[in-house]
């Protein structure tokens, strides 16, 4: 998997140097309607705006960027004709669309209009292209150079190193709570577990089925580490979600955390960040766990998919408009905004961590049809464990029970 990335990074650099980034005009063949449903953050707004350049007398382009997109997309694409022709999705949000067969294979369109796309942008399910990725994201290590230096420590390579480093920092009185993690019960807490579990190299499910596979040594190892880390966190760690730990970071109250690459830019933004902290903030790939070599953080992509319940004409213009929206020219202009997976992207310092994950062989967040149910079960059932109210065995048992009931309702387990 890493071969893709490395090969591309090299060829991309060459390309980026060679290609004079002239802003390509949007030329769309055919006529029709483009309606984009996406999440609401800056990189996607850029893509939506660029796609809107394709509007003409014959092509109508509209977009709806909303944080509720995950809840809207199902019914919106089920309707016939679908309300939206394009759904911007990620590893997790594409799953419901795949499960219900609401998006169409894009192989023909890629062949016809996808010259600017790179092979690794194609999300293939069973050999068919179902989505085109254009953004990468993931959690990776944020650390304070100054604190680690003062404590005489190396940059931690593993979650175990993080705990050991935290111990030293605390003992030397450099910081009261050297660690932070997004342990708030809910989506964030479940992501913490999944990240580390993927780092062990084990699979979350038994092969080829929806049966759970986390009641194992790896599962216990992960939970033990999660608990150990809380000892070095502020007692408020149960309220820590991704945004909250960014603020704790900015307030100079923690020295190491595994945080989203998409929030790295804000942490060192000279206009907003705490200057003392920002100057000493550095990024590295996600730590490994249990002596393994796989970075313990899931890789995420954002991409677009085209609705099934629309006319082929609409699908064709929608595809072309989106390809323009993520064209190398657009990306070149906004390269600092995110980690783009597009030809010609030159990673800046804030993309370092995500790229380190990818080159280090981190796994992608799983796209199994029942992954969402497991995530939900983890998000609620690990609450007592992380709060220190129950032990790992009980927590794993609870997760299995909650997941089992949900998977039965979903028809995945008999």
């Amino acid at each position, binding site marked *: 998997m890493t071969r893709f990335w490395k090969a591309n990074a090299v060829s991309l650099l060459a390309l980026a140097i060679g290609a004079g980034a002239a802003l390509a005009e949007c030329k769309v063949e055919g006529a029709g309607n483009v309606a984009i449903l996406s999440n609401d953050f800056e990189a996607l707004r850029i893509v939506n705006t660029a796609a809107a350049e394709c509007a003409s007398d014959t092509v109508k382009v509209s977009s709806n960027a909303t*944080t509720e997109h995950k809840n809207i997309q199902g*019914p919106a694409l089920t309707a016939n004709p679908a*309300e939206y022709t394009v759904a911007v999705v990620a590893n997790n949000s594409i799953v419901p669309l795949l499960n219900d067969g609401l998006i169409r294979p894009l192989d023909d369109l890629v062949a016809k209009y996808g010259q600017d796309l790179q092979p690794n942008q194609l999300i293939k399910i069973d050999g068919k292209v179902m989505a085109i990725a254009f953004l990468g994201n993931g959690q990776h290590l944020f650390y304070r150079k100054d604190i680690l230096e003062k404590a005489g420590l190396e940059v931690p390579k593993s979650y175990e190193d993080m705990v050991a480093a935290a111990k030293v920092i605390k003992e030397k009185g450099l910081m009261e709570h050297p660690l932070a993690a997004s342990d708030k019960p809910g989506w964030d807490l479940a992501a913490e577990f999944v990240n580390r579990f993927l780092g062990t190299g084990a699979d979350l499910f038994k092969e080829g089925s929806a049966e759970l596979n986390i009641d194992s040594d790896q599962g216990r190892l992960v939970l033990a580490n999660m608990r150990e880390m809380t000892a070095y966190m502020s007692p408020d760690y149960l309220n820590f979600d991704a945004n909250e730990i960014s603020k704790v970071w900015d307030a100079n109250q923690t020295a190491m955390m595994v945080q989203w690459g998409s*929030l790295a830019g804000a942490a060192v933004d000279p206009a907003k960040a705490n200057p003392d902290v920002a100057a000493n903030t550095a990024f590295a790939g996600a730590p490994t766990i249990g002596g393994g070599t796989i970075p313990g953080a899931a890789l995420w992509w954002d991409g677009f998919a085209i609705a099934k319940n629309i006319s082929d004409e609409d699908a064709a213009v929608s595809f072309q408009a989106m390809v323009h929206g993520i064209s190398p020219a657009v990306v070149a202009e906004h390269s600092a905004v995110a980690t783009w997976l597009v030809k010609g992207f030159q990673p800046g310092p804030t993309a370092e961590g995500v790229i380190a994950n990818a080159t280090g062989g981190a796994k992608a967040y799983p796209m199994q049809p029942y992954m969402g149910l497991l995530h939900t079960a983890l998000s609620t059932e690990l609450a007592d464990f992380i709060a220190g109210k129950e032990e790992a065995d009980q927590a794993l048992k609870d997760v299995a029970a909650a997941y089992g009931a949900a998977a039965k309702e979903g028809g995945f387990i008999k």
Partner: protein
Amino acid sequence: MSTTANRMPGSLRLLTTVFLALWLVAAVFPFAWTVWGSFKVEPDFFSRTSFWDAIEGVRTQMQTGSAFTLDGYRGAWIENDFWRSAINTLIVTISVTVISLTIGTLGGYALARSGQRYAFWILIAALVFRAMPHITLVSGYMLPFFQMNIWGILPTTIIVLVAINQPFTLWMLHSFFLSIPKDLDESALVDGCTRFQAFRLAVMPVMWPGVITTGLFSFLLAYNDFAVTSMLLSQDNQTMIPKIASFLGSIQESGNVMFAVAAVVSATVPLFILVLFFQRQIVSGLTAGAVKG
């Protein structure tokens, strides 16, 4: 009642004043704190170090060169087109209030005057309907709305909000109608009015306090709604609350909470005027000698 107040014994007077003062502080302080904080930057207002940052504005000084900043307001109103959401909210809340009250007063009046068993059962049914978590209802609407191609527009949301608020409106107005003596409309009927005329000419004039109060709640329900508006409106038609929610940030973007704070503060100004305006109606509405006991 002001005459009774004058005759209050000193100890009771003191007790009332202290209690009221305490309550008003409890009610106003968080809001006042918010207003104050809306002129600071986020690391000050939501300081991890000490609340004194919010008072002194350390980071605000550092970032903007002054202890107060309009950045929150600028960000919300100018950079993020908050005014567009404000207009949408205005349309939605006014429509919801007017429609709710119109059909609610008719229905509430009928329920209060019917005396039939089925009227009771309608009330109970309405009450039970109210128990349904809104999110469940809303997720049920989505597919039909998409299929009928009426999703995302303001009228759909207005009608849904009216319907969802209807049980409450009916109950509340029904209670108010019950407190108005039957003789009032019955004498109008005897005088040859139709039911509707009796309702309009005899009952409604003394119902204003009830209508205004219910209207206030309908207004606030529509105004504060998040479940319906966030799921049923497209971005162009977004109202204020989903807009404010979008300022709060996600794993993808470190939002700007101060935009949300500034937006909330500025959204309260028209409400202040509204309440001051209608407060007179509530107080003076009953002077017409409506209640004869």
